[in-house]
């Protein structure tokens, strides 16, 4: 089984953006073009994270997904603002292969269960944002601003039981730091569940990917900034991982 490298694109009102907060968003280009470019460079999957704050922005996302799906031939996951079964259905029928659910999964566990029953576990990714507290990790929602009080390991087991097909695990402590993935968190979750775990948050160099895919036990690793800025080229990353003995798709 090969390990997957996933490129994540933040989309605001139909454009790929980058910024540390909503006040400082820099335009990084057209999502359709960027997704295709990453496919060509060897990305195994694409994730779109809709960070639009407005209703019109969210509507635009449907078109972005449709236009991307008509040219992309690798799996596409869409997350951000998925709150109801109708949202899930709309994204999948527009060409997304999976949806990623975060806040709504915590607030309404039934959404995981009904989405999984309706569309299959493979279409449902639960995103878990976790922050270290002493010797455990706490689950946060609402873009990392709201402490739910849930334990990340227990919540991971629960979402598996509810029918999630994968877990997209983001370390809030590491996100944006480029200091490496949270290996301990990833290993703790990955060894507690029997569904694939995608590690996210903290990618800064190629060694970081190697660590999380080997010691961390992750089935896939996701990054955004290091790919967009050209710090790491996916082709180079895959060659490096192969050299280190990690099986990836060539």
């Amino acid at each position, binding site marked *: 089984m090969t390990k997957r490298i996933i490129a994540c694109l933040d989309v605001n009102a139909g454009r790929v953006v980058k910024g540390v907060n909503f006040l400082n968003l820099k335009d990084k280009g057209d999502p359709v073009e960027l997704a295709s470019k990453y496919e060509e460079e060897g990305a195994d999957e694409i994730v779109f994270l809709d960070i639009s704050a407005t209703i019109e922005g969210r509507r635009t996302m449907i078109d972005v997904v449709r236009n991307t799906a008509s040219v992309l031939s690798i799996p596409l996951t869409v997350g951000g603002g998925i709150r109801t079964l109708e949202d899930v259905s709309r994204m999948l029928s527009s060409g997304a*292969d999976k949806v990623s659910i975060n806040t709504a999964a915590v607030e309404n566990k039934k959404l995981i269960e009904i989405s999984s029953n309706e569309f299959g576990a*493979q279409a449902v990714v639960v995103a878990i944002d976790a922050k270290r507290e002493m010797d455990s990790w706490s689950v946060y929602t609402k873009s990392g601003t709201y402490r739910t009080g849930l334990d990340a390991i227990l919540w991971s087991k629960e979402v598996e039981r509810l029918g999630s097909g994968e877990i997209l695990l983001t370390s809030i402590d590491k996100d944006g730091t480029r200091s490496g993935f949270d290996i301990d968190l990833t290993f703790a979750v990955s060894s507690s569940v029997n*569904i*694939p775990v995608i590690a996210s948050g903290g990618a800064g160099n190629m060694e970081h990917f190697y660590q999380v895919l080997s010691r961390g036990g992750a089935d896939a690793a996701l990054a955004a900034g290091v790919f967009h800025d050209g710090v790491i080229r996916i082709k180079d990353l895959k060659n490096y991982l192969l050299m280190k003995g990690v099986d990836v798709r060539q």
Partner: protein
Amino acid sequence: MPTALIINYGVGNLFSISSSLRRVGFEVKIKESPEANSDLIVFPGVGSFSAVSNFLLSFSEQLNDMRKSGIKFLGVCLGLQIFFDKGTEGGDTKGLSWFSGTVDKIRANVKLPHIGWDRIYEEKKTELSEGLDGRYAYFVHSYVAYTTESYIMKSYYGIEFPAMVEKDNVVGTQFHPEKSSETGKIFLENLMRWIKR
């Protein structure tokens, strides 16, 4: 332009398979029931075995007639699984029995669903498997066909399983060609040649 009819048996993403068939030159229609004036009937890879087989078995006579008349069939993932005698997903359910065998959960100590890229290997050289031996394909499934029949391509996930089956005018892939980048494109181009033959 050859026409491909994708059977819409309910839910899920039919957009990707339509787009990828169009890209290799098919005229694509999506319908709730099979139609004889098609060059290719496609069973897409969405839904569960019991739901989909119940749906398709309501057309079984029509489908069997079409098959005898020489219309070609493509089954993707679950669409391949429906070709077999029986499935266990959602309770024991009959399939189309075009191939003999049972579709059951992957019997190995591995994480399920099997999601990701694995190599596919040629077992038998055919025009459909041409250029695919050793290439990576994208899989998303928890069930595989356990069969004593021969298959044309295989893959491994804890166990060996059929990655592509072919008999007469029926072909099925356990992987998703529409999600398998260059590998998928090669397969769909082979498929197009096979249709035109």
